[in-house]
């Protein structure tokens, strides 16, 4: 019951406020279109008709929440998932690039962190480059990467995934460098007294000590991997994927379609972070963490 009071109600209260504000904003922004549309047909709207029409436009400036929900419902539940109009199909296209990119980014990030922690030359030279890589706007580098890879015959899933990798390796490097260096001097001295090899120190001390840092990084990494995959779909004129839905929606002024794709992408991102959090709790439990520390 405590979780209901302390966790569910506050979230619901905020949700209600957002929806109310949204309906108000939708009315304000759409009513001009509704009135003009009626005027073209020579009709004059009563106040009530204007309200109703504002929430039922085909191409509203700001779709009302129920229009977005209906669009999502129609393009997921009532449609075969292999259909080109199914959001499940598009979400899967983007998700597969996200997961591949996230996996590559995690491996690359951990590898770089291991190098930085164990090799003095890498320690001195790598970090500025890692940071510099993130100062370049992803919107600028994504088309370049895709064009270049296309020229050498790589297209499809991998280029998009590589943009996810480009974004997601960064938090993993930063987190893992800190994590691998987190053991106390006492714990390292202990290994020294056993004359332990570097491999033993890594697997028995540094890596387990870095696990909490790794999961904090992975939660950030998985969310920006999805962003990377969507951004990767935009400049290529991709025909499938959530990015492609956003793009085609904006070509044809299909605002409801755009918002539906946005909602689905944020739901997918939320689910991914939730799954990483679940794995984190599982791993913590296997590592014998104090129960309240994992909450």
């Amino acid at each position, binding site marked *: 019951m405590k979780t209901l009071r302390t966790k569910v109600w506050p979230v619901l209260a905020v949700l209600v406020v957002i929806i109310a504000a949204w309906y108000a904003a939708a009315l304000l922004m759409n009513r001009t279109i509704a009135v003009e549309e009626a005027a073209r047909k020579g009709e004059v709207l009563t106040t009530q008709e204007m309200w109703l029409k504002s929430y039922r436009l085909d191409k509203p400036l700001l779709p009302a929440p129920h229009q977005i929900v209906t669009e999502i419902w129609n393009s997921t539940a009532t449609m075969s998932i292999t259909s080109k109009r199914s959001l499940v199909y598009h979400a899967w296209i983007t998700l597969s690039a996200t997961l591949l990119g996230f996996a590559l980014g995690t491996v690359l990030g951990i590898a770089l962190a291991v190098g930085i922690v164990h090799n003095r030359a890498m320690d001195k030279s790598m970090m500025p480059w890692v940071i510099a890589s993130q100062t370049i706007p992803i919107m600028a580098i994504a088309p370049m990467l895709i064009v270049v890879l296309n020229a050498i015959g790589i297209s499809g899933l991998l280029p998009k995934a590589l943009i996810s990798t480009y974004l997601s390796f960064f938090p993993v490097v930063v987190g893992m460098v800190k994590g691998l260096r987190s053991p106390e001097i*006492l714990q390292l001295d202990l*290994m*020294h*007294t*056993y*004359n332990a090899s570097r491999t*033993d120190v890594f697997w028995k*001390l540094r890596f387990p000590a870095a*696990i909490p840092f790794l999961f904090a990084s992975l939660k950030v990494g998985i969310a920006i991997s999805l962003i990377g995959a969507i951004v990767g779909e935009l400049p290529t004129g991709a025909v499938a994927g959530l990015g492609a839905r956003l793009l085609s929606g904006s070509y044809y002024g299909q605002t409801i379609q755009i918002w539906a794709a946005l909602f689905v992408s944020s739901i997918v991102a939320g689910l991914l972070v939730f799954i990483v959090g679940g794995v984190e709790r599982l791993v913590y439990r296997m590592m014998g963490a*104090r129960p309240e520390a994992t909450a």
Partner: protein
Amino acid sequence: MAENQSSVVSAKNLGLTFQTNDGPVNALTGVNLDVRKGDFVSFIGPSGCGKTTFLRVIADLERATEGQILVNGTTPEDARKNRSYGYVFQAAALYPWRTIEKNIALPLEIMGYSKDEQKKRIEHTLSLVNLSGFGKKYPWQLSGGMQQRASIARALAFDADLLLMDEPFGALDEIVRDHLNQQLLELWARTNKTICFVTHSIPEAVYLSTKIVVMSPRPGRVTDVIESTLPKERPLDIRETPEFLAIAHRVREGLKAGHSYDD
């Protein structure tokens, strides 16, 4: 002391100077000491007297800059590579993601003991420190005293004849400390190890040791070495006897003499 007993630690004119940003710091100078097999040697002195530094030199965690030191007849580095000592730190330094038995297994895994051998040794050392039945617990489920006992078990798990202990009971309250001191003496009697023990408690040093090394700071050096005349069998109330108090008095005098150097 019999001449035929072999020397486990022997230091000749040992010195160590740390190079710091504020200039050189003389942590140890002119230390001459012989620790013989089976000895229980306590190092006592105020902070900055180099007692922990000396222990770390034995363990090859620091390198001496002058003089000579032999551990088991070899350099400290070789002694460390031969895994000839177990080290107990001020804090238990148990790995929180390992159960108690896995923590004890840590040195055994690194040194390549077989699974069966590991199991045997874990059981044996757990019973030595009176922690049988706690093997499956995680460190946070144990009290501070139990954690420190687990860390002693970890140091005993492999076949090192020398046990180096750096204020292992410093962070514990006096009742627990008395209890652990008693258990440590029993353990020493049963295992026949050589123990070097750093402390800043006079009663602890006198109660435990066969030999007490009194040290003083700036520069860190040995001011007195006291051979204890107490019997090997020591109940806790031996601390009320005149013999005990006489040794404690001599330790206190040694500490005072060192301090007169100060301000």
